[in-house]
């Protein structure tokens, strides 16, 4: 199981802050994960309409969309950051 965590408007559009999922075997990269999630229903379609803008962290470190997911425990999806 992989824990998925969502923040800011990604969380609001999906309608939950986190979930545990069993990733399909053919989901190997971050990009493939985003495309698979997008197909999981209207709320995911709305949150991930433009997957290229979504930022992703694996085990609390930023990664780009080509990154392999491997045995990630925790994957977070969020919009570009606006702290400071």
């Amino acid at each position, binding site marked *: 199981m992989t824990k998925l*965590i969502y*923040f*800011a*408007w990604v969380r609001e559009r999906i309608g939950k802050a986190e979930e545990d999922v069993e990733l399909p075997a053919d989901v190997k990269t971050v990009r493939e994960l985003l495309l698979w999630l997008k197909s999981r229903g209207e709320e995911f379609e709305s949150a991930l309409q433009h997957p290229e803008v979504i930022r992703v*962290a694996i085990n*609390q*470190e*930023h990664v780009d969309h080509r990154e392999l997911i491997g045995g990630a425990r925790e994957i*977070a999806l*969020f*919009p*570009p*950051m*606006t*702290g*400071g």
Partner: protein
Amino acid sequence: MTVAVVPMVRIQAADFDVAAEIALLTQGRVDVGAVVTFTGLCRDEAGSLAALELEHYPGMAEAEITRIANEAIERWPLAGITAIHRFGRIKPGENIVLVVAGSKHRQAAFEAASFLMDYLKSRAPFWKKEHRIDGSEGGWVDAKESDEAAAARWAKS
């Protein structure tokens, strides 16, 4: 003998005291010739903002700012570096973020503080949502390209 500099990073709902943080960084030592602080405040230009709500990724927020602070320690000869970022509901005029950089000389302190802020803006997992005075939600603040550009200027060639 050099002692490894360990950054002080705190993510908290409570406000911070700038003078107390400077004192914490310089106490008990006489080799710090320069301290630069940056304080970021919640600002309202239109007169319509009730508060900003700052959401963060607990765990990663600390980890990411610590990674950035350690990079600053590698790049400049620092005596100490502190970063405090608040979360939760913050009203116009209140503090959001503090960076304190101490060094022997001013140049390193100025540059390290500036570097930390530029990187924090585009890499620390925080998101701002606006709440308006009329009770409506102003929506999520958009990330600025100028912040990305500010971070990019520190890239090593």
